[in-house]
């Protein structure tokens, strides 16, 4: 699954750690999601969408 996390994060000038703190997960988790190595669960995807005030499909898209 592709995602726009890196771009969205850069727009807000957030580091991976900043986003991880907001999500309550490790920096490694953010890195794994961002690089497409790990697809988040639905609850975590909703949390990400909530933090960026966007819909899930605006952040994640199928390959």
């Amino acid at each position, binding site marked *: 699954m592709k995602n726009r996390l890196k771009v969205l994060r850069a727009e807000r000038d957030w580091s991976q750690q900043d986003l991880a703190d907001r999500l*309550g*997960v*490790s920096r*490694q*988790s953010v*890195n*794994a999601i961002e*690089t497409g*190595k790990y697809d*988040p669960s639905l609850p975590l995807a909703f949390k990400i969408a909530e933090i960026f005030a966007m819909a899930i499909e605006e952040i994640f898209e199928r390959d």
Partner: protein
Amino acid sequence: MTEEQLSDPKGRSPFFYGGIMLAAYGVIIALASTDAINSATALILMIAPLGLVIPMMKAAARRVDAGGPACMGKGAAQKRYMKRVALFTSLYLIALAIMTFADKSYDPIEAVRVILATLPGLAIIGVFWAIGRLIVEEQDEFMRMLIVRQSLVATGFALSAASVWGFLETADIVIHLDAYWWAVAWFFGLFLGAIWNRIEYGTWGAV
């Protein structure tokens, strides 16, 4: 303390101590399997490297407090896990020392021997329990997945090694190994699982 350690508040990596411990066990196993030392001496010698668990746990805790590098997650669940493992490892050391001392000093009755021989195994069960609790308590789903992957690799490795070794032993090709070595193989499997995690996900995991 070296200048390098002074400039780096995280100090040595926990993997440094883990590596020394594994190397020490390798040497002891080599000595025992070549009959350079007898089994009782090997058992006593095996207690010493376990002392490295304490600096290893402290090094891991320092890394967690420092924010955690790419090789390690951070969080309350992992801190609780490290404390539990340190506790059960200490209990294991004590139980093993008591068992060895009692065996060498006097000939205990069977009931006492059963109790003494059961204690180290119970301490090891405690470590398995700590890993199980970590899986339950870890709130970070990615880190939890890494722990589960490590555990699956460890289980596959230990059971495969036990199966192959068992048949080789039946065919009188290899020496007899006491069953507790498969728990050691499982812990080594965790290390292999961490390497696999690192290759596939760029991070070692939390165990």
